[in-house]
């Protein structure tokens, strides 16, 4: 279901469209689902719903919950306090109490400073009644999230179960600031995300109490709905990513370069074996850098130099994937002539591409962190990175029996005599099918 373009489809077990609904812009996800089920022949029992939710806007962030921000890292990480260099209007609108307390870990997981539980408790008391959510981030929290977890427990005790406490280590991203920023934005948006997901969940359960709900992420893979409220920013870019996957799927392909032509621009992206290549860039939301990775997608404006720039963008998107076809969709697909010297497919029902991409989406887990090769050497680190990625994919809903992996990318640590490397790897696979009754 594409709640952005108000499209919903039902796919059978072989990913064929058996029912669809074209709604109106602004339709709520729950209403879209209701309309699909009411009108859908062949949609007798829907056992899984995958939704593309609208991505958060600056206004959503500003009008979201006030957030208490706790950094665990004093005295090591105090030159740049939390939110200190944020756009001033944004931090003024959303910041509740902000504190940096003693604690955190070193690059190899050992304790950097003991966790100052008394200071955490003081922060929690200041936050009580003053915030709608809390973000907690600790130094080297990916290598060792223990201090984050203990602090989050103290805060949850003080503020009660209804106040979301978002941990930085829940975002797989190198960089304390990037994880902290993601946690703060997710905290600000958590209540609104929960309300939206709960509404959809209720509508789905009225149809089938056993059904599973998933939310599409910015790379076109899914997040279980249970985790959705804590990762509201993960929806950023979901519609475009699902569109690329879905267009390929409509053309009967797992790898394709997709062009979506609209009145004012063309979107170009490549899906390779069900994954969008990464751009190497972090997403910015409301002018703040997050830990979310942006896939490689290009938008080409339809100005006078459009054709030549589109062909150059197409060539770039297909670099290294010379054999794969080009799939053209979009409401202006007919004005674009076939690009030269490539197989071109123009599937029907192109306007359903994003919804199809959602309904057929897979689950993935990505790892991106520093691995200290202190004891077991490189082979151990690589094995650990792959295991962590597979575990994350399974937690996201993937069937552990049929996972695929990307090659492990390695970047060595520089300037220091420590055998350590930044390793990046993604595991992906189809969703585990619900057990048939």
């Amino acid at each position, binding site marked *: 279901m594409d709640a952005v373009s108000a499209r919903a489809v039902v796919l059978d077990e072989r990913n064929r469209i058996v029912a669809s609904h074209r709604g109106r812009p602004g339709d709520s996800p729950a209403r879209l689902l209701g309309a699909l089920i009411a009108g859908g022949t062949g949609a007798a029992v829907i056992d899984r719903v995958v939704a593309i939710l609208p991505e958060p806007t600056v206004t959503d962030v500003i009008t979201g919950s006030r957030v208490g921000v706790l950094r665990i890292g004093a*005295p090591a990480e105090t*030159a*740049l306090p939390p939110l200190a260099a944020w756009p001033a209007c944004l931090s003024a609108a959303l910041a509740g109490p902000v504190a940096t307390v003693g604690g955190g870990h070193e690059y190899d997981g050992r304790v950097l400073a003991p966790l100052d539980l008394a200071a955490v408790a003081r922060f929690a008391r200041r936050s009580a009644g003053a915030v709608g959510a809390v973000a907690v981030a600790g130094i080297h929290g990916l290598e060792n999230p223990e201090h984050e977890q203990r602090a989050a427990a103290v805060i949850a005790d003080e503020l009660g179960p209804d106040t979301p406490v978002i941990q930085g280590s829940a975002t797989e991203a*190198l960089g304390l600031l990037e994880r902290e920023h993601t946690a703060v934005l997710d905290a600000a948006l958590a209540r609104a995300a929960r309300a939206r997901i709960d509404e959809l969940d209720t509508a789905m359960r009225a149809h089938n109490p056993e059904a599973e709900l998933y939310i599409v992420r910015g790379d076109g893979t899914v997040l279980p709905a249970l985790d959705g409220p804590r990762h509201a920013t993960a929806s950023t870019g979901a519609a475009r990513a699902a569109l690329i996957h879905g267009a390929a799927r409509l053309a009967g392909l797992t790898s394709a370069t997709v062009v979506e032509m609209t009145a004012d621009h063309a979107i170009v992206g490549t899906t390779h074996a069900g994954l969008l*290549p990464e751009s*190497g860039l972090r997403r910015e939301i409301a002018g703040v850098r997050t830990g979310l990775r942006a896939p490689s997608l290009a938008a080409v404006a339809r100005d006078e130099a459009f054709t030549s720039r589109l062909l150059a963008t197409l060539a770039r998107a297909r670099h290294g994937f010379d054999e794969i076809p080009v799939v053209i969709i979009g409401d202006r697909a007919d004005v674009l002539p076939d690009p030269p010297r490539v197989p071109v497919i123009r599937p029907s029902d192109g306007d359903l591409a994003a919804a199809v991409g959602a309904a057929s989406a897979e689950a993935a887990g990505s790892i991106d962190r520093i691995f200290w090769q202190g004891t077991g050497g490189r082979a151990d680190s690589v094995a650990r990175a792959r295991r962590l990625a597979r575990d994350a994919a399974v937690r996201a809903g993937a069937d552990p029996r049929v996972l695929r992996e990307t090659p492990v990318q390695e*970047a060595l*640590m520089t*300037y*220091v005599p420590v055998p350590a490397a930044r390793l990046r790897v993604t595991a992906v696979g189809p969703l585990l099918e619900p057990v048939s009754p």
Partner: protein
Amino acid sequence: MDQVAEAAIDDVMRGAVHFGSGGGGDPYLGRQLLTAAVRRHGPVPLARPDELAPDTLVLPVVSGGTPHALLEKAHDAAEAETLLAAVEARAGRKCGAVLPVQLGSINVALPLVVAAELGLPCLDADLMRRTLPSIDLTLPRLAGHPVPPITVVGGAGVVAEFSSGAGTVLGELVRAVMPALGLVALISAYRLTAGDCTRLGVAGSVSECGRIGSALADVRPARPDGHEPYLRACGGRLACTGTVAEVVQHSADGWPRGVVSVQTPGGLVRIDFQNENLVLSQEGTVLTTVPDLIGVADAETGDLVQTVDLAVGQDVHVITSPVDDRWHTPEGLAMVGPHAFGYAVDPVGFDGASPAAGTR
């Protein structure tokens, strides 16, 4: 430029990336650190070395450690005070200004942050005129000035001092204490006065970052001549344009080494890098080597990119530009030429000419 105010930070940081030659760290963290410091303490005053009394002791500052670790643990507010106190205690007198050791995003931002925190001006100068991977690779040392005393300040008040010895040995020792400090430290070295800096002729570095960064902001990547403002500002040239085909890294000899391959209309171009880009070659012909600068810009955005962040399929421009002429002397090349980094090629300048041929 007589101060770094908030409005100037973007330009200064963009220009600092130019001097990183593909290394020196992503500018985001430095920009955030500097913005926070300026918001807290006000604009950082810059001073030319000849504006200060010649016997004014200065505090050279460089961030030690690895950019990846710095992303997690980006210095504590007390480190600057600790460093200043240790250096002043050893010298027996007060420091009157902070001095950047090298140019590169973190190591331009950090001295400015330290200056803001200490309430001192920052000298509009630096000791390398680019980024080089070791604290002993500086123009004062090229001129015979000793590297020590070296002061290393880690988190939680740890101070290590190395008072005398050969620069290369001390460089190893400094690296050796880094793991215990969590791979991040604030480092000072060289006992220098403002008068020394005037004699060295190393003025204008931060202003230069601002000037080049402002030209980078004027780059219009969609236009064929869109990079002209930047090329004019840095005196460089567009060596080639192509698509990143491969990025590999290995560490056979204990140093991280890497190779980027760029597919260009003129064939495969190769960039050998360690921390910084060091050798640019095409089909076996060396086009440019360290010490001149080899930068890679994203063709779509025009932004300079850290080499380790390049992605396969990315369209890029490779841009080469000159560095301080003293690095091209026989003594300078012995310190920072390609041979010094273990590459068996002769130095070639940014314009493809051999510096030994007297073209410079």
